[in-house]
Structures are given as C-alpha cells and as structure tokens.
C-alpha cells in the first residue's frame, strides 16, 4: 500500500473505530468466559475491574487529554454515589438516619435508572461549577487545587451528619450491578472518551497539552477546553461512582479518598496516561497484579506449608511498580499510543502524525 494515497470511506471507518473495538472485544470475551465458566468470585473480580475501567477512563478524559494531574476526580464519584444513595436507598431508615434530606428525597424512593441518570448529571454539574474556578489555574497549581477539592468535599460529607451520616456507611443500596451492566458502562465510557478525543474539542485540548504557549499563539483558549474535559470527566466519574455504590451496596465517604485516587492514578500511569488504550490496559494489568497479591496475602499452600505474604505487600508492590514504570517507561505500557489497525498504519493524515510524535516524546 502506498503511503500518501487517500483512504476509501470503509478504510476511514475502520481506522476511526478499530482502536476502541480492539479494546472492547477482549473485554467482552472476558465477561463471556467469566459468566459461563467462572466462579462467583471471579465474576465479582471481573465486574470490579470493569467498574475501575469506567473510573480510570473518566480520569483519563481530563488528565490524559489536558496533561494536568487531577487528584480530585474521585470526588465526583462520591457526589454521584451519595446522590444515587439518597434516591434509592432504604425507604424505612432514611427519615431516621438522614433527617436533613429535603422532603422529595427523604420520603420517596426512586427507581435505579433515573437515579443513575440524575446522579451522573449532578456529578457533571459539580465538575463544571468547580471547574469554572479550578481551570483558571494552570499546571501544578491546578493539580494542588484539585487536591483541595478532594479535601473540601471529604470534610463536607464527613461532617454533614444529618444528610450524609458523616463518616458512617450508608447501607442497603440495591445491588444491581452485574458484569454485563459494568461491561455496558465500560463500553459507554470508552465510547465517550474516544468520540471526545477524536473530535475537534479533543484536538484542541491535546494541543494545549503538547505546548501551552504555541496553542495560545494559535488562538486556542486554555480555559474552555479544559473546562469541557473536566466536566465530561466528572460525568464519567459520576457513572463510576453510581456503579461502585450499586455494586457494593454500601457507601462511605472515606472510600472515595486518597487510596482510591492513588490506585486509579497508578493504573493510569502503568498503562500510560497519553492514550485511551493505556488507560484500559493499565486497569487490566494492575487489577491482575492486585488480585494475585491479594491471593498471596491470603496464603498459598505449597505442599504442606502455607505461604502467606504479610498484609500490605500489595500496596508496596503497586507503589514500587508505579515508580519503576515512571523511571524506566515514562509513557506507560502503551507508550501513549492507541491500538491501530496494522494495514492502515502507513496512511496517516497529516494532522495526526504530529500528535503521534508528541506522544512518543
């Protein structure tokens, strides 16, 4: 195939959709295998990993495209998780445990689907409003301020006894999230991230990531593209929060704090925060590692002796792995590249090649 020849519409379509189809099909295969052959435990592990894909893709939409590290994204999970909790949880107990809720939440129980939609919308709204302020800052100041956001919402929800039950867990949420639902959500998140990053809005924000000054010189605002990314990211994080809430059946504010932030960022770093494929790969690789070490901490019997790693090894390994990746393969496993269909790799529209180079930098 000669480079430089223009593509046929079919090739164009393949080129556009192949990178995410190549991500989605293996996930589908894993879910099918787990549903048919797997134990309940394995199915739960798979579901958990799929929810994490939603979460990490949510963070990726902002961090990967803008290049600004956000420590505050799991906040939007908390916002959505509590919102769906208020709407769907424990009709009998609500007026007693959370007397401060407004009447329409306290005395009514809503069905799960509209609750999920409104919760995601609320998360996106909170992201938009906080983003109005946070996105005025650039780079490190913005990162530190997202950390402030994480602490603000945590302090708020931890102490707002009459509405959030403080640091106590809200229990009794309907547990409807199966592997299939989690898969659907993961596919949705991947689709949103892909369509966004391939759109003109995505190109603009990637330009600000590559070179703030040059982007500004081309008339690109730093503010609005980042705000848009932050809002979309907030919505997808909200979806992750809703899924988490209805997967565990219980929520507490300290679940959505530094530890979850760390694990999600570790996944993004390990896979490579420059590409959607990196975000998904990171979740898969890190989830496998976490699961293996979780089992080894529980104890493995080899012959007659039981070997068990001390509890906490898992966290040390994860942190060390993240450092090793940062030092030796800064762009993560995927190196900032998407999966591309081999036969079409040769034909590159001019605009995109500059981004591929930027990813390798």
């Amino acid at each position, binding site marked *: 195939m000669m480079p430089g020849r223009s593509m046929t519409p079919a090739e164009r379509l393949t080129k556009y959709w192949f990178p995410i189809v190549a991500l989605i099909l293996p996930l589908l295969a894993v879910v099918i295998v787990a549903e048919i052959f797997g134990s309940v435990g394995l199915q739960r592990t798979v579901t958990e990993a799929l929810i994490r894909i939603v979460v990490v893709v949510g963070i990726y939409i902002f961090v990967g495209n803008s290049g600004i590290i956000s420590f505050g994204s799991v906040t939007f999970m908390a916002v959505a998780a509590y919102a769906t909790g208020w709407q769907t949880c424990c009709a009998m107990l609500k007026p007693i445990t959370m007397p401060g809720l407004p009447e329409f939440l306290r005395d009514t129980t809503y069905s799960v689907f509209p609750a999920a939609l409104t919760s995601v919308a609320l998360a996106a709204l909170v992201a938009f409003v906080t983003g109005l302020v946070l996105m005025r800052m650039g780079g490190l100041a913005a990162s530190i301020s997202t950390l402030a956001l994480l602490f603000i919402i945590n302090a708020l929800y931890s*102490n707002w006894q009459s509405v959030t039950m403080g640091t106590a867990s809200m229990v009794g949420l309907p547990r409807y999230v199966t592997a299939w639902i989690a898969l659907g959500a993961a596919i949705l998140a991947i689709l949103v991230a892909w369509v966004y990053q391939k759109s003109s809005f995505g190109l603009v924000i990637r330009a600000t990531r590559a070179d703030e000054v040059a982007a500004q010189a081309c008339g690109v605002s730093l503010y609005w593209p980042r705000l848009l990314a932050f809002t979309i990211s907030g919505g997808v994080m909200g979806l992750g929060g809703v899924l988490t809430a209805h997967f565990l059946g219980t929520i507490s504010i300290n679940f959505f704090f530094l530890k979850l932030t760390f694990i999600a960022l570790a996944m993004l770093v390990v896979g490579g925060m420059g590409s959607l494929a990196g975000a998904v790969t990171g979740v898969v690789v890190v989830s496998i590692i976490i699961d293996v070490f979780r089992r080894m901490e529980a104890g493995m019997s080899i012959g007659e002796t039981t070997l068990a790693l001390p509890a906490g090894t898992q966290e040390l390994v994860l942190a060390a792995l993240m450092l090793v990746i940062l030092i030796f393969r800064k762009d993560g496993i995927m190196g900032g590249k998407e999966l591309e269909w081999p036969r079409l790799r040769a034909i590159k529209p001019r605009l995109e090649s500059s981004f591929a180079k930027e990813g390798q930098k």
Partner: protein
Amino acid sequence: MSNIVQILVDAISLGSLYALVALAIGLVFGVMKLINFAQGDYITIGAFALVVPSAGVAPALFIGAWPVVFMVAGVLTVVTILALLTERIAFRPLRNSNPATLLISSFAVSYFLQHLVILVHSGRPKSVGIGNSLSAAVEIMGIRVPGNQILTMVVTAVMLVSLVVFLKKTSMGIQMRAAAENFQMARLMGVKANRVIAVAFVISGLMAGTVSMLLVVQTGTLDVRMGLMPVIFAFFATVIGGMGSLPGAALGGFIVGFISVMLQAFLPPELRPFRDALVFLLVILILLVRPQGLIVNSAAKERV
C-alpha cells in the same frame, strides 16, 4: 484580652509549624520542580522512629528512650537519611521529567512509605509519653501559655532564622538560591546539581524531623497519617505564597495557620466541623485572585 492573646499564640505556633513544612517543600521544589508528597511521610517516620516496632498501642520507646540530645540527633539522622534515600532511588532518575511526572512519583513514594510504616508498626494509633512535662502551662506577663507551644515557637523561630542565614550568608545557600532561580544557568556557573539537590533534601529531612518531634510533644500520639494534614496545608501554603518562592512559602504557612486558628475561634460551633473545608475553600479563593500566588517568582512561569 488574654483570650485574644491565646488565639494569637495558637495562630503563630500553628502557622510557624506549617511554615516549616512549607519551606521544606518549597526548597525542594525550587531546585528540582518536585512537589514532594513524601514530606508528610518523613514526618510520620521520624515520629515512629521513637518507638520499637510492634502492633501494640503503647509501644516501648526506642530512640525516644535516649537522652534528649541523642534523641533529637537520632530522629533527625533517621529522617535525613530517609530523605536522601528517596532522592537517590526515586527522584534522581526522574530529574529531567516534567513536574507532573515528578508529582505523581512523589505520590507513589508517599504511598510506599505509608504502607511500609503500616507493615512494620501496624496501622493502629499509638500513644507515647515524650515531653509530657513540657505541656504544663507557663505564665508570661499574666498570660498562661502551654509550654509545648512556646517550644514550637522557639524551635521554629530558630530554624527559620538559621535557614535565612544559611541561604543568605553561606556559599552553599547562595548556590541553592541561584539554582532555585534558574537551575540551568546555575549549573553553567559551576553549581553542582547533585550536591545542591542533596542539600535541599537534607534540609527538608531536618525540618521534617523537627516537625515530627514537635507534633509528638504536642499530641502524645503516633499515627500513620500524622504527617498528612500538615503537608496538605503546607502544599496550599506554597501555592498561596507562590510556587518557587521561599519567603512566599513561609508567608503562606503563616496565612494558612492563621486562617485555620481564626476559623476555629470565631466560627459558630455548628459550623466548626467544616473548618478544614472552609480553609481549603479560602485557599482556592486566594488563588482565584492571584493564580500565581502572593509572591511571584520568575521560576514559576515556564520560559518559552
């Protein structure tokens, strides 16, 4: 009257504590554009070095059982070595990375150290009785001030003054300021990169060790997360003060300490639990007015 003086004393002692942590973060940021999350874990590990590793809640003393001079020297040595180790192993290979990568890597180092402490000492809070005699109130001009607050103020004042003298008067201090101003240019003028960065980490270790002992004397408890809040407040202090500016970091530390104590004193009781949230909110508002911080340093803006 004495009430207002008491609030002022609280504000100054808390502010100076934050200023110490903020300066340590600011120094390291100045020379290598690293915002060091692990500063909090230096503080935690310094405090845990006082006791023998165990799962109990009232552990036997280790360095904490030594005579005061050796105890202070011991904790400072442990923390300084730890700071140098993290620099050598984790941060030096990443020296030429962008600040976002460095930030993430320090987050990972912090997570690692935190779980190392949990692994060795278990995650439970512990109580230690060091410096109990210091918490007795001292009467100065008719106002009673807890002894440990006087200690905090005196120690931080000494540290701040000696840091200023070091930065202004010694050759190493001047090299360090030059490196913070423009690292490449300083290297071209003969400043040794490795040495300047190592000294920055030594100073941040000494400050973390000091803060950990002051915290232990004040609270009498050890907790895996004891370093977290001071460091978070110090982060905001360095951002408010202006990234890369040392006077800014100190100023920011005092501002955050003051806001914190004032809110605690003057908020209506039902709003007091939300104090930290309000402090962080004010931080963001200050940044809205001055996104570059109060004291703008030339290093804060990337050159084109």
